[in-house]
């Protein structure tokens, strides 16, 4: 009976390892990107990342080659992304199928239109809580409107 124990153990152990390995491979291939990103009309190229960098959350350990994600329908159209893996690292990202201006189903146009300064000017600046502008340095802050507001509120 000992022989049987040994054989069964080997068989079971190998089986368990194979199942684990298969599960791992399945998990890796299913994490190839299906990014829901939108692109402009026309083609747009992704950036070639430096060869010294790798995007760790992505397919680390995936075999070299190009992987194309699924065609994903986003609110703004369909998007498809292709990544290229080289030397086990992410080498290139390209947005393939890009949303076309004309095919996009935009409900309402949210485009910015010219507007007069006078129409925009609000006289009730007294009720302003915060000021938003291009980022000020710590020094520039001292002369800013925000610092005046802060002084009042401190």
């Amino acid at each position, binding site marked *: 009976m000992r022989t049987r124990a040994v054989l069964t153990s080997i068989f079971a152990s190998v089986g368990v390892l194979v199942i684990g390995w298969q599960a791992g491979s399945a998990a890796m291939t299913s994490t190839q990107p299906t*990014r829901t*990103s*939108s*692109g*402009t009309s026309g083609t*747009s*190229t*992704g*950036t070639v990342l430096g060869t*010294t*960098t*790798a*995007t*760790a*959350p992505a397919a*680390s350990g995936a075999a070299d080659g190009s992987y194309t994600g699924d065609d994903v329908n986003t609110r*703004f159209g369909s998007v498809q*992304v292709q990544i290229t893996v080289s030397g086990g*690292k992410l080498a290139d*990202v390209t*947005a393939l199928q890009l949303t076309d201006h004309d095919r*996009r189903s935009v409900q*309402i*146009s*949210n*485009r*910015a*239109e*010219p*507007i*007069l*300064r006078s*129409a*925009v*000017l*609000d006289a*009730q*600046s007294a*009720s*302003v*809580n*915060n*000021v*938003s*502008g*291009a*980022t*000020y*340095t*710590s020094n*520039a*802050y001292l002369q*800013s*409107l*925000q*610092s005046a*507001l*802060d002084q009042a*509120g*401190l």
Partner: protein
Amino acid sequence: MRSVFETMGTVASIELAADEPDALDGIRGIFADAEKRFSLYRPGSELSRVNAGERPLAAASAELRDAYALAMDWHLRTAGAFTPNRPDGSIDLNGVVKALCISRAGELLHSLALKDWSINVGGDVLCAGLSPTGDWVIGIVDPVDRQSLLCALPLGEGRRAIATSGSAERGDHIWTIDRDTAAEFVQVSVIAEDILAADVLATAIISGGIEMLDLATDTWAIDVLAVRTDGSLLATPGVRSLISV
């Protein structure tokens, strides 16, 4: 109750309904940690070390890698108008780190069950609930005369964040893509629900011009007030309705 502290080369102003020293400490900590990790002005920061080649990106901390992945994500979405990579290839995450910290600070306040607050870091504002005077009202600086405001807009549900980018003052984290034309906008303010989206898109529109502005307004639920180089304004319909309110 307003508190002010210096961080990331600028100044943060926090408004809370009451004195909350723990919350403020927490917020200060968030910014301090990020600065330690991401500041390019400190040679010992993790990002500086990565840029110097002392540490490969793959071996960097999860926070750094996540921030970089996030920045690359936005890089894709803005068709390259926003990029965390400088022309020399080094990584500059200033464009996302500030907003990430503001976002996290907001989550901290939320987790402390504080409902009414505003966080303003160098002109990027995130708010929640009500101010002492009602809605949170944000004044947008006139780029031509920084002592006066262009307008004042109320923030609220669905548009809790505003970020303004300028080509004039602190434009070092905007790496304009290769274009023949000069910058079309001197200042862009973006109102959105998410401070990171607002910040990234404001930057992207400055660097990408009118094309990026159209893409952004078509793609995301935002409102934009943009100032052209000649001083004239462009505004989305939402801004109009906010003003007339």
